[in-house]
């Protein structure tokens, strides 16, 4: 049951990533890779956070971001195209969209404690994404060139 749930969510993430990639104008031949990247990132999130409650949500988002960007850079080198193509749509599932909703919701319903909890969580998640992106982009391009040969 957990496995089926995981599978559904990962497929949804993959298809959703491709759909938003299409809006951003990602060329059609890269759709499978976009889907794979978005799905992989969300799989990390679902397994580590939703199922195992590993560490904390921002930490898990950081790990998921690292996976997304490692894969994006790898595919970018392999397919000889700009990394932006994979990155933008792949990162989208991790962006705290639901966090915005909950923060706004608690703010206007005057539950300020919950609002600040949610709001700070969204900010922490955003910072985790920032750190993930910055860290993986420090790895020199030559590493990915070597890795893509395998």
């Amino acid at each position, binding site marked *: 049951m957990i496995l089926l749930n995981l599978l*559904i*969510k990962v497929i*949804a*993430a993959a*298809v*959703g990533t491709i*759909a*938003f*990639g*299409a*809006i*951003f*104008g*990602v*060329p059609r031949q*890269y759709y499978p890779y976009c889907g794979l990247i978005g799905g992989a990132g*969300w799989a990390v999130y679902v397994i580590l956070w939703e199922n195992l409650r590993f560490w904390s949500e921002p930490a898990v988002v950081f790990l998921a971001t690292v996976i997304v960007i490692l894969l994006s850079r790898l595919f970018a080198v392999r397919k*000889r*195209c*700009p990394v*932006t*193509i994979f*990155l*933008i*749509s792949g*990162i*989208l*599932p991790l*962006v705290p*969209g*639901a966090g*915005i*909703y*909950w*923060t*706004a*919701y608690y*703010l*206007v*319903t005057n539950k300020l404690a919950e609002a600040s909890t949610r709001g700070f969580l969204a900010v922490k998640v*955003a910072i985790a*994404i*920032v750190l993930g*992106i*910055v860290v993986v*982009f420090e790895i020199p391009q030559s590493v990915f060139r070597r890795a893509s040969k395998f």
Partner: protein
Amino acid sequence: MDQREVLDVAMEAGHILLENGAEISRVEETIDRICRHFGVESENAFVLSNGIFLTAGNETEKRFARVKHIPVKGAQLHRVAAVNQLSREIEEGKYDISQIRERLRQIKVQPGKRKGTQVFMAGLGSSCFCLMFGGSLQDCIATFGIGLVLYTYVLMLGKHFSKIVENIVGGMLITVLSLLLARLPFGMDMSHMISGCIMPLVPGLAFTNGIRDIADGDYISGTVRMIDAILVFLSIAAGVGFVISIYHQLTGGAML
């Protein structure tokens, strides 16, 4: 070969890249590469998030200066990929200047996805993300519909508004629709619907590019893009919050 032509072509390549969502360092690098390949050594490109400054000139090379203002538009990443490919091929020596100019002209008019397709993709993406956040089947179906309405609004009306108003109204629109649907007896959950529907509005491109620009040391452009992203986030939240607040007033604070 005329130095001026080289710089014009380089500027045009940079223009297409910047307009369609490339990061600053890629724009600068591409302009540099094209110029170096054709032997313009004194070239100097300074790129901001909405403009390119390109100059050249020293003892041996003629003076050249051009500033181009490039307003922020919707990104079409296939154009970034195409210019990137072109710049690779230029370095391999496949083209002369007039051929490059022709290729760039073609890339510039390369059609994006049709509007209908974009609207459909927004619906599909929203409902997938709703499912991903744990929404039920009813939620997903509803989200698909709301996603279609939302993106039709974004393409038809949204472009006429300022970015702030566009996203406030967008946030209001999805909240009103979700509220109405949540009141129907199909057991739809408002939070899941809204979480999914928000995604087409979320500024993923500005956010990601902003971070990368700052990481590259392009602080001015990075900051501008980050502020752009934060502004959009806040506008969406304001729109959502506004409608929920009115709803609470009308229903006397009943839980949703």
